[in-house]
Each structure stands twice: as structure tokens, then as C-alpha cells.
């Protein structure tokens, strides 16, 4: 009796274990069973309802997405894992942070090419003309000046400035009206680099081939008037007290609050702030204009949502990974992303929702009027020495170095990084 009870218990346990080991989820008819490892920045792991979209695809195909959030140094961690062959199938990131030809599977853009806006397709194309990324379902971004329209109106400014001289005059009026003209969040150093990103957009006006020349090191940033005049202007703003006095300890969240509350007039940021500020204070009227230039010619660029989604060259589940990434960019998924995270439409068949912030409509108009250029950050092959650049911004804004020093050291840091990476010409 005792032995038969034990035998029955063991048999039951064995049956339960074998059922638990089955990899086919209930309710699916597919043979599926593959696991795709998707390394994602932890801040984006829940963007636009991504977990729900993953669950829907898993139920449809029987395959599984193993989402692995990475908190810090995303590109370094993913690169190290790719180099070690430790199972990353899908990852994101700008081309200059990786070795695309060695680590990324070449993608045939035919299935999505016709759906993409030309700006979006440009940003997915590597410098060798090939595509190594699927577009992301989240919208694209641009960089420029976002401002509180009420503060501008109260200071007597009726049209946004186009030239650096107009910008200076506008800032003087805002300061006289008792508000901070330009808010900078130096504590969160990455925010300072959004000014750099906006400056990059102005460079092709001076020379359409500027990025090819910078990539071959046949021209330097210090040779570009559009580059040096921007930093001369910024150093001047700091000297004249147009920037918040606590910029070294001010935070990103603080900057959004200062603009939405009307304590400060404007800041230079990426267009993702619009959705965040709308949630913070829906009634705040936020406008946008491109970073002014000396000549007054305005143009913006678009950023391909951080470089798109790549499939690792060594992935053993490339077919399933491609199927998942294709699923993510179907119109229903893209529209859903746009509703929760408004931004520049990357797809022709997923336009801006009607309730999108007004400033985004302004941005989209610039793109439709062809007043846009290739995104500098995406076109520059040299991995940006971000930390050095942040330190240089802080030193210049504090008046410890001049704009000329800034430009020289910025250029130097980029060239040294290019040499360290073994890029030809450096």
C-alpha cells in the first residue's frame, strides 16, 4: 500500500513537471517555442505599452520575448555582450555606438520603406548606404528651442527669433520682465548635449558635405563658422546672466517645471519633452522654434529614435526577431505608441493624433516644408565623448573657459576619440 501510494505520487509529479516544461503557451496553435532576447534601456521598457504588445505577439506566434532592461551604460553593456557572444538578439542604439558591419544583420528595407517618411529612412541608413535597423514604433524627435508662449507674450515678443541677434534681444526683454530667459539643467549633464544636437543641424547650411568631411577628419569643428558662432553666443548668454544662476545643480525635471510654470522662458531640448510637459501641466502653452543662426536660415533635423532596432549578426533566431520587429511597426502598434508618446511621425500611415501638442504640429510643418536636414549625431561616425563634452559645457557656462577654448577642446576630444576607435583619417 505504502509503495503504491509513493508510485502514484511520483507519477503525478512527473506528469505535472512534463506539463510545466511545455513551451507552447495555452491557446496558441503555432509550433513557436523560440526565445528572443531583447536588450532595452530600462527607461524605455514600458514605453507606449510595449509589454502589452509583446504579450499579444507571443500569444499569436508561440514565441517568447525575453525583455532585458539595462539601467546604465546601455551601449557599453550591449557591446560587451555582443563581443562575448552572450545571447542578445535585438538591441537598439545609434550606429556610431557600435560596429554596425560586424555586429548588426543587414536589413532589407523593402517591407517598410514605402511607409517611412524620407527623414526617417535617412536616419536608418548607415554611411555605407546599407540599412542595419528596423524603425522603432515610437516617434522620432528633433532638437531645438521649446518656449512658454505666455512668457514670450508678456515680454512683448510676438514672433520667435530666427537670428542670434534676435535671440539676444528677446532674452534681454525676458530678463527685463523678471523671468529667466534660458533654463539649463547642468546637473543632468545629458540635457546640455541637446544644444550640441541642435547646433549639428545648422552645419549643413554652411557646407552640404560637412559630415563626410568631418567623418574623414578633413575638416574640424573649429573650421565651421556655424559651429563657433553658436558657442560664442552661448558664452555671451551666460555672461549677460540670461541663464539660470543655479544651472549647475538644476535638474531635467526642474527645467520642465520651470518652463511649464512660466518661471523661465525657454530651454533647448528634444521634442519628447512636449508629451511630458503636457502631462505635467496640460494648460501650459508651449511653442517651438529651431535654434537661431547668424543668417536666420532655419532648419531642423530628426533623430531616428536612438538609431532604430537592430538584430544581432550572431542571432540564432533572426527570422523570429525580424517577425517581431515587423509586428511592432504595423500601423495599429505605431498609432498606439503615438497616442501615448506624441512625437514626429516616422510613418506616413500613422500621422500625428488630433490631440498632439501644438508645438509638434509646428515641427511637422518644418519637415513637410523640407526645412530639415540629416541628424548630425547620426551622421557623425566618431562616437561622441559625451562626458568630456558635458564637462566643457559646464566649464564654459560657468565662465571658466572661453567659447574659443570650448570649441578647441570639443574638437580635440572628438579627434582623439576617433583616433582611439581606429577610424581612418584620425
Amino acid at each position: 500500500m505504502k509503495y503504491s501510494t509513493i508510485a502514484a505520487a511520483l507519477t503525478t509529479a512527473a506528469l505535472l513537471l512534463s506539463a510545466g516544461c511545455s513551451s507552447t503557451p495555452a491557446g496558441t496553435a503555432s509550433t513557436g517555442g523560440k526565445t528572443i532576447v531583447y536588450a532595452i534601456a530600462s527607461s524605455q521598457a514600458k514605453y507606449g505599452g510595449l509589454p502589452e504588445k509583446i504579450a499579444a505577439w507571443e500569444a499569436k506566434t508561440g514565441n517568447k520575448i525575453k525583455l532585458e532592461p539595462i539601467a546604465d551604460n546601455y551601449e557599453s553593456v550591449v557591446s560587451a555582450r555582443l563581443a562575448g557572444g552572450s545571447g542578445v538578439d535585438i538591441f537598439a542604439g545609434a550606429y556610431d555606438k557600435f560596429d554596425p558591419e560586424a555586429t548588426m544583420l543587414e536589413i532589407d528595407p523593402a517591407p517598410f520603406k514605402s511607409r517611412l517618411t524620407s527623414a526617417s529612412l535617412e536616419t536608418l541608413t548607415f554611411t555605407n548606404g546599407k540599412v542595419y535597423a528596423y524603425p522603432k514604433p515610437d516617434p522620432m524627435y528633433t532638437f531645438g528651442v521649446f518656449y512658454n508662449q505666455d512668457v514670450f507674450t508678456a515680454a512683448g515678443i510676438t514672433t520667435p527669433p530666427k537670428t542670434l541677434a534676435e535671440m539676444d534681444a528677446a532674452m534681454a526683454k525676458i530678463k527685463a520682465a523678471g523671468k529667466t530667459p534660458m533654463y539649463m539643467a547642468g546637473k543632468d549633464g545629458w540635457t546640455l548635449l541637446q544644444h550640441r544636437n541642435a547646433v549639428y543641424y545648422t552645419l549643413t547650411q554652411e557646407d552640404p558635405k560637412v559630415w563626410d568631411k568631418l567623418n574623414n577628419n578633413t575638416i574640424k569643428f573649429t573650421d565651421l563658422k556655424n559651429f563657433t558662432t553658436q558657442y560664442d553666443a552661448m558664452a555671451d548668454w551666460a555672461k549677460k546672466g540670461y541663464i539660470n544662476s543655479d544651472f549647475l545643480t538644476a535638474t531635467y525635471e526642474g527645467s520642465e517645471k520651470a518652463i511649464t510654470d512660466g518661471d523661465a522662458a525657454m530651454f533647448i531640448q528634444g521634442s519628447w519633452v512636449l508629451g511630458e510637459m503636457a502631462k505635467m501641466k496640460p494648460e501650459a502653452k508651449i511653442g517651438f522654434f529651431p535654434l537661431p543662426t547668424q543668417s536666420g536660415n532655419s532648419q531642423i533635423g530628426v533623430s531616428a529614435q536612438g538609431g532604430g532596432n537592430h538584430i544581432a549578426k550572431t542571432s540564432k533566431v533572426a527570422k523570429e526577431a525580424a517577425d517581431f520587429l515587423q509586428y511592432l511597426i504595423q500601423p495599429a502598434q505605431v498609432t498606439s505608441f503615438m497616442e501615448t508618446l506624441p512625437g514626429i511621425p516616422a510613418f506616413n500611415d500613422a500621422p500625428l493624433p488630433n490631440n498632439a501638442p501644438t508645438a509638434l504640429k509646428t515641427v511637422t510643418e518644418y519637415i513637410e516644408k523640407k526645412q530639415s536636414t540629416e541628424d548630425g549625431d547620426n551622421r557623425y561616425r566618431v562616437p561622441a565623448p559625451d562626458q568630456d563634452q558635458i564637462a566643457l559645457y559646464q566649464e564654459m557656462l560657468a565662465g571658466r573657459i572661453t567659447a574659443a577654448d570650448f570649441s578647441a577642446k570639443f574638437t580635440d576630444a572628438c579627434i582623439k576619440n576617433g583616433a582611439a576607435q581606429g577610424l581612418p583619417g584620425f
Partner: protein
Amino acid sequence: MASPSRTTIRNSYPLYFLAPALVIFTIFFIGPAIVGMQLSFTDATVRSMNPKWVGWDNYIKLFTATGGNIWNAIGNTLIYAVLVSVVKTSLGIAIALFLYMKFKGRNALRALIYMPIMFSAVVIGILFNYILKPDGPLNAFLKLIGLGFLQQNWLGSFDIALYSVVGVDSWVYVGWTVVIVLAALGGVPKDCLESADMDGAGPIRKFFLIRLPLIWGSVTIAFLLTIISGMKVFDLIYTTTGGGPGYSTQVISTFIAKSLGSGLLGFASAASVLQFVFISIISMIIQGLISWKARD
């Protein structure tokens, strides 16, 4: 008489017991250190699949191609390490002497002094970022007690940010020195102190002529270990100032972290080896000075 083989076996006991620890130490410490040193002589980056041997190139670049940043980092590291060691050791001795006296609530106070060590550096960084901000509680308190002229941008000033972090480090980790000194004070023979009392020695003479010489060994160990940890500081700087503003609080560890962030593995490894050599030299010098003084 035991046979030779049994004697040999008995004499080998220490090795048998040491072996597991040696194996683990070799795999997890010596091994990675050797790999790191090897990497420092290559042009390895996170992008490159085939690093090439470049000899002393990375070390030369450290001193010639960083715009003086490495010298700034070395200087800040030295200043930081010396200051935290002096502050923590002297403050630790003073607090330990106070806590050695008998009074009500002594044990609770001892626990309170030690408690900050148990918090993680991230928590401390977030906490002090709040306390030390320009409109934070510290400045508000200074204004309240009529010392408004002392208000500063504690973590945002190029001139004082490093010293602010020294203050935070000292507040958090002084308890460690207190514990060591308290234990040493417990070992001071009571009859020496009683004899000194009978000879009419006051508390200051008793401290300098009896207590301090007898606890000197523990104090120097605490000082040496504090200097070493000061030279390796990373987490507190990273969470409070991130090495900024500018380069004003950049130390060797944050320099290495920033190089790694740029994907320059070979270059960052060279900086790590430099840090190791630097700490070893400083430690040997201090240890040598202490031993020489002890022989005197």
C-alpha cells in the same frame, strides 16, 4: 615518533585549508587583474572584435592626450584621500574618546554613529543632493541660525564641491574609525591610567602619553585603510556630483568610468593599472614611514 609522511601531511595542513580561498582569489581577483593588464596594452574597444597589441600607447595617451585631465584626476584623488583620512581619523579618535566614557545612552549613541555606514552610496548620494542643494535644508538651517553668509552651492561650485563630498564621506564613514579606535581603547591597561592618575596627570597628558601610544597601531591601520579607500573612491562622487561640475571632482575612478562609457577598453584598463600602481606606491610610502617611526 611520527613517520615522515605523516609529518609532511601535518605540515601541509595550512595549504589544504588555504587552497579553496587561494583558488577563489585567483579566479575572481588575480585573473581579471591580469586580463585587465593585458587589455591595457591593446587598442580594445567595445566596437572592435580584434584588439591589436599597441605596447605603451595607451599609457602615453593617458599623459599626453587627455588635455591634462589625468593629472587633474590624480590631484583630486590625492587631495580627497588625504583630507578624508585626516578628518575621519582625528574626528574618529575624538568621538571614540567621548563614547568611551560612561554615560547614559552611550550604547545607543554608538549605534547611531555607526548606522550611516549601512546605507548604500546611492541612497546617501540622493539624500545629500537634496540636503546640499542651493535651496536645500542645510542652507535653510544656516539662514535660520543667522549664518546665512555661509550659504553655498555646495555641490555645484567648482571651488568647494570636492570639499563638500569630503564632508559627506567623513560624516558617513567616520563610524568605522570610531569602532576601531574604541576597540583599541578597550585594550589600554587600566593600571597604567591609574598610575598616571596617582602621579597627577590630567586627561590631556594621559591621552597623549599613555592612550595614544598604546592605540597608535590601530590608528595607523585605520588611517592607512582610509587613505586606500579614499584613493579608490567612486560611488560617493558618482552619486553626488558625477565628477562635475566640469572636472572639479573628477578622480581616477570616475575618469576610468568615463573612459569605459566611451567604449575605450584598452585605455580604461591602462588608467586602472595606473590607479593600482599609484595606490600601491602611496600605501608603501605611508607604511614605510609608519614602520620607520615605530622603530624610532
